[in-house]
């Protein structure tokens, strides 16, 4: 069974701080996605990374796929209260059959 472990589970920071969230596995994934979920809503896709070592930027968010395609990180610069939410990573195993989701990192950014 392929598993994705996210850390930390919870993160509470002040506005303006930087943070990094990690998504790790012992398995190789064909691609990895990051979603953000706000209370009472469904997850919304932020990014998909496909190539080992790939780095993608979305404004203040930087996503990296590990060289071996087993792990990923999400770095947020100068966090804002609007970044508050549950961040989920999801990996696509070989065969592209289904997404495997991590348990998520709950981020709270305080003004």
């Amino acid at each position, binding site marked *: 069974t392929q598993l994705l472990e996210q850390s930390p589970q919870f993160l509470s920071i002040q506005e303006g701080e930087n943070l990094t969230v990690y998504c790790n596995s012992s398995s190789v994934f064909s691609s990895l996605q990051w979603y953000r979920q706000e209370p009472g809503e469904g997850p919304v*896709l932020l990014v998909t990374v*496909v190539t080992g070592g790939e780095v993608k930027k979305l404004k203040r968010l930087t996503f990296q796929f590990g060289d071996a395609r087993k792990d990923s990180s999400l770095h947020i610069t100068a966090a804002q209260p609007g970044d508050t939410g549950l961040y989920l990573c999801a990996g696509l195993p070989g065969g592209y059959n289904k997404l495997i989701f991590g348990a998520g990192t709950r981020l709270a950014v305080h003004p």
Partner: protein
Amino acid sequence: DTAVSQTPKYLVTQMGNDKSIKCEQNLGHDTMYWYKQDSKKFLKIMFSYNNKELIINETVPNRFSPKSPDKAHLNLHINSLELGDSAVYFCASSPRGATLYNEQFFGPGTRLTVL
């Protein structure tokens, strides 16, 4: 003009009852999914349909029966509800199921509470 819609948003019912959740997507996607998100926010796939054909059927009790009347709709019927079925159920769709990018669009969720 909601992309993926689910009804109802909230569902409170007694143990042993039968209930249904409906899902519709207006994105023209071929593939639809049902996910269950438990109290720890762990999101797990239950079923997937591609053009009305069942392609993923995870280890789910047979009390859960999906039905896709057309590729824009995927409903979930649950028989003999149990306390452990309490969760948030999400419907999702993607343009094509088996692609590297596989972007999935989620509905707002249905919070099911079994008393």
